[in-house]
Structure formats: structure tokens, C-alpha cells
């Protein structure tokens, strides 16, 4: 998990590092982001299609769970992403605070909905999966409950952001919340280990994998697709955010004129 988080952060951070000083300003980042989106969106689509075909049709049914296990290919990547994205949000919020950079706080804001959607997806697929395996949609198991709590952390972030009219104050306040909340994510995650739990423990770890290699590789495929998708969508949303906040800036009016 931590490794996954690190990779994601470094990856998104790396993208931003290209000519940092030039592109740290919203005005020059806007077109750059526009150019970058297809580079993430298209591979995401391709990998997702491959992963889905493999996962749904090619791989054989599980000897214990039959067909229902196939939900794992969405469930697990979504669950990972939901945690990673919160940390990434906090990362951008910290950058935004330290260097007082508007773009970073916009990144944080733009990440939130994607994270929330992944989180919801993990809950939804998990609940659907719960019915055939545990015989119920919901149990108050630690992993499930903490995932729900994570969803509420996203909602809290978005609610705070929405409740503040002034965009600058909104970004600063919700950024602070993301940072405080980021301490909470690993605590919640590991606190599960102290709990007796119905849910499966981590079976994919950097050192050993219990899963069949074919299954693991499909899952990896799906996970990468999820990353690429998250990055593409976030860039898209940052662009909207930039336009909204900079609507009085000269370059935005020029852009609008060009479009006309």
C-alpha cells in the first residue's frame, strides 16, 4: 500500500516537475494539461479493456467462488485507489501550503471527486460481492466500516470546500483538513489488523503473492488502468478549476475569444 502510494505520488509529482517553475502557474499549466490528458486517457482505456476481457472471459472460474470472484478486478483496484488518492490530495495540499501555490491546491481539490468515486465503487462492488460469499450485503466488519469512513472523509472534504464561498479560503481550509485526515488514513488502515475481521487480509504484498499469477497480473493491469484514468480525469478537472478561478485573468478572456 505504502509503496503504491509512493509510486502514485512520485508519478504525479514527476509530471508536474517538468519545467516546474514555468508550469506551476495556472496559465501555462492549462494548455499543458490539455495536451497530457490523451496520453493518460487512451492507455487507460486500452488497459481497462484488455483487463476486463481477460478478467471476465479468459480466466477460468474460481474453484471456491465460481464466477463471482471476477468482481475482484474492479473491487481491489478501486479500494487501492481510494486510499492512495486521499494521500495524494494531502500531498498536494502540503505543497500548496508550503509554496503558497494555487495550482497545487487546485490539484488537491480536483482529486477529491475521483477518490470518492473509487471509494464508492469499492463499497458497491464489495457489497455486491458480499451477497454471494457472506450471504449479506453488509456486515459491520472493520475493513468495510473503515472504507465507509474513508468515503465520509472524502465527503467531509468536499462539504467543507463547498461550504466556503471564497475560493482561496476554501482551498486553504480544505487543504488543511486533507493534511490532518491523511494522518488518519494509515491509522485506520492498520487499525484493522487489531480487529477480528470477516474480510480478507492483504494477499498481495510486495514480497509474496498468494494469488494465481494470471489473476494477479490482470489485477495489476486493472490497477494501472485505474491510475491512468485517475490522472487523466484529475487533469481534466484541474483545467475546469483553473478556468473557474482565473475567469477574470486576461489569458482566459483571450482563450474565450479564440474559441469564438
Amino acid at each position, binding site marked *: 500500500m505504502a509503496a503504491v502510494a509512493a509510486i502514485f505520488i512520485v508519478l504525479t509529482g514527476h509530471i508536474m516537475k517538468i519545467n516546474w517553475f514555468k508550469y506551476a502557474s495556472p496559465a501555462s499549466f492549462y494548455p499543458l494539461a490539455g495536451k497530457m490528458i490523451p496520453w493518460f486517457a487512451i492507455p487507460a482505456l486500452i488497459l481497462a479493456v484488455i483487463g476486463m476481457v481477460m478478467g471476465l472471459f479468459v480466466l477460468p472460474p474460481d474453484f471456491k467462488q465460481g464466477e463471482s470472484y471476477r468482481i475482484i478486478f474492479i473491487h481491489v483496484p478501486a479500494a487501492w485507489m481510494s486510499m492512495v488518492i486521499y494521500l495524494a490530495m494531502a500531498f498536494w495540499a502540503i505543497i500548496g501550503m508550503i509554496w503558497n501555490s494555487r495550482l497545487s491546491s487546485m490539484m488537491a481539490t480536483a482529486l477529491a471527486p475521483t477518490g470518492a468515486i473509487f471509494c464508492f465503487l469499492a463499497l458497491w462492488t464489495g457489497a455486491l460481492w458480499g451477497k454471494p460469499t457472506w450471504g449479506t450485503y453488509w456486515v*459491520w466488519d472493520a475493513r468495510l466500516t473503515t472504507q465507509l469512513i474513508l468515503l465520509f472523509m472524502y465527503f467531509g472534504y468536499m*462539504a467543507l470546500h463547498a461550504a466556503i464561498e471564497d475560493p482561496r479560503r476554501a482551498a486553504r481550509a480544505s487543504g488543511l483538513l486533507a493534511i490532518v485526515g491523511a494522518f488518519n488514513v494509515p491509522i485506520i488502515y492498520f487499525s484493522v489488523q487489531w480487529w*477480528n475481521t470477516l474480510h480478507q487480509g492483504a494477499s498481495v504484498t510486495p514480497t509474496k503473492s498468494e494469488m494465481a499469477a494470471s489473476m494477479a497480473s490482470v489485477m495489476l493491469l486493472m490497477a494501472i488502468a485505474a491510475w491512468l484514468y485517475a490522472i487523466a480525469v484529475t487533469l481534466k478537472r484541474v483545467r475546469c478549476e483553473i478556468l473557474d478561478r482565473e475567469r477574470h485573468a486576461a489569458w482566459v478572456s483571450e482563450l474565450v475569444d479564440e474559441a469564438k
Partner: protein
Amino acid sequence: MIAIFRTMLSRELTLGLRRKADALMTLFFCVIVASMFPLAVGPEPALLKTMGPGIIWVAALLASLLSLERMFGADYVDGTLEQMVISQHPLPVIVFAKVLAHWLTTGLPLVLISPLLALQYGLEAQDGLILVATLLIGTPILSLLGAVGAALTLGLRGGGVLISLLVLPLFVPVLIFGAAAVDDAAAGLSIEGHFSLLGAMLVAALILTPWAVASALRISIE
């Protein structure tokens, strides 16, 4: 009188629901509160099933308590309450509009989400229905009684201690009958008694509290 009622109601609703997110907030709140208990008590489904109605009722109580202070507090501080008191319209009507809005924004969302919570706690469908019914009758009582406390505590004159002493104990019977109805239903006992008691309390509260609140406001505003 209908016009002022409508205006005040829409004012309160606008204030409560400035944004769509605001309406959802109470819903989320209830779900979070409900999720706290399993974390603390453990995931035992049978245990949680018996606790379910109690938990949902506590969430309701908490949601109304948390928002009580704002029911008149904000209007008191900015002087709009004064203007209501000296308007030519009957104060109880204005009060009633405010209380109704309070219920619509805190009690009703809770009633609406309670089936989901009932599901999460594994209640039987029928018990869930009864729970919803008790909440539907009970939460307005919470709003009405809470309004009396909120009005009396405004400037904190006549001994604020007294008020929480007054209001919370008044809540207790509502809470007990509400939660007990579901339990008894689950146990196959008759629940008419509970319902008629709750209903009687609601009627009494509807009739009496707007006047009580209005006089409390006149006193507090001095």
C-alpha cells in the same frame, strides 16, 4: 397568516439548504453516527440487530440536539428575531414555521435514511417499517420540545441549567417509547400502546409548544 407562514418556511429552508450539499449533510451524519457503534461494540450481527433501533434513535436525538442552538441563536444575534417578535403577525405561527423547517432539514432526512440503516443493522423488513413509523412520529416531537429549550436558553437568563434539565428528560420518554415499539414488535408483542402514546405526545406538543416557544422568545429577547 398563510403568507407569512410560507415566507418564513421558505426562508428557513433556504437558510438550511443553501446548497444541495447541506441537505445531504444530515444524511451522512446519521450514517456516520450509526457506523460508530459497530466499531466500538464489535461486529456481532445478532447484537447489532438488537441495538439497531436504539442506535438509530440516538442518531436522531443527536442530530436534533446539534442543530437546536441555531434554531433561534443566529436570529437572536443578528436582530432578525426582534423583527419577528414585533411584526404584526402571530408569533406562534412564525415559530411553527421555524420548527417545521427544522424538522424538514434534520428529522425528515433521518426518517428517509432509516430504512437503509435498518438494512445495515440487519433488521427485518417489518421491524424496519415500524422503526420508520416511530421516527416519523417521534422526530417532530424532538424538534418541538427542542424549540422550547432553545428559546429559553437564548440569552441564558432564567437559569440555563434548568432548561437542559427540562428538555432532555422530556426527550427521554419519546426515545424510550420509540425504541421500545420496535423491540416489542420484533418480540411479537402489541405495539398499539406505544404508538398511541407517541401520537398523543405529538398532538400535545403540536398544540402547546408553539405558544410556549413564543412566550419564551418574548422573555428572552428583553
